[in-house]
């Protein structure tokens, strides 16, 4: 029985199938590309304090303060293609201490939506989150590495996690900043 409703039904079903195929094509065209881009991170100021960590075991822990510059051509063609809705950028610090072979702390993050500024160029940024160590592992730590990574939020397909090419390693000071009381 061929009625208006049955014609509308087959038309709608066929359109949906075609749309699904197109979405899969969108995923396939971007699934195997290299999304890494060079990133330039510079640290202008490092400060180290030893303060009460009220979340931890009631001891004084190391708290670092880092002022940094980040520049990257993140939003250029290789990263922001037609299968990207937004990027979640985050700057993380990696270091080794006596108690843990690998510590990772996220210091700062940013969400970049489609259609926003085409270049990331930030100067003298302060970290958004506290750089607390769970002990005293930051003092005189010679190798603390800052890297910028990002999650790609796609229209269709997998959710890639990309590490930017380029990092900075810095030593932390040997002594704590003394809290001055006026």
């Amino acid at each position, binding site marked *: 029985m*061929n009625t208006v409703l049955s014609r509308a039904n087959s*038309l709608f079903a066929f359109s949906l199938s075609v749309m699904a195929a*197109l979405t899969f094509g969108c995923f396939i065209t971007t699934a195997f590309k290299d999304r890494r881009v060079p990133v330039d991170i510079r640290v202008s100021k490092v400060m180290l304090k030893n303060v009460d960590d009220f979340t931890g075991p009631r001891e004084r822990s190391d708290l670092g303060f880092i002022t940094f510059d980040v520049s990257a051509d993140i939003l250029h063609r290789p990263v922001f293609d*037609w299968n990207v809705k937004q990027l979640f950028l985050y700057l993380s610090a990696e270091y080794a201490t006596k108690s843990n072979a690998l510590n990772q702390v996220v210091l700062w993050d940013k969400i970049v939506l489609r259609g926003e500024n085409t270049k990331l160029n930030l100067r003298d940024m302060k970290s958004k989150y506290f750089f607390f160590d769970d002990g005293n592992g930051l003092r005189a730590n010679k190798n603390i590495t800052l890297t910028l990574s990002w999650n790609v939020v796609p229209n269709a397909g997998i959710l890639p996690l990309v590490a930017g090419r380029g990092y900075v390693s810095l030593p932390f000071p040997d002594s704590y900043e003394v809290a001055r009381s006026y």
Partner: protein
Amino acid sequence: MLSMFKSIPTHMDYKGQKLAEQIFQGIILISAVIGFVYGLIIEQFGWTVYIVLAGFAVSCVLTLPPWPMYRRNPLSWQPAVPESSGELTQKPQESLKKKKHK
């Protein structure tokens, strides 16, 4: 009210049904190819979706109503057999008989 809707003609003949199906499949496939290429070039998947939706709307207008081009090959039915006078006279007789039984 319902009879008013039922009086709207929706019928297509068999060749018209086939033609309508070929037309909407062709329109949607062509719009899909155009949308895919355009979206790939301008790096906006949203435009691909819009172009396919436009193709969907166009094919709805073209193939849902029974336009005259879908009714060009009506089935050639046998001509209606003129009802013979004998049948006409028999039926009243049967009914008469039933009435007699009662």
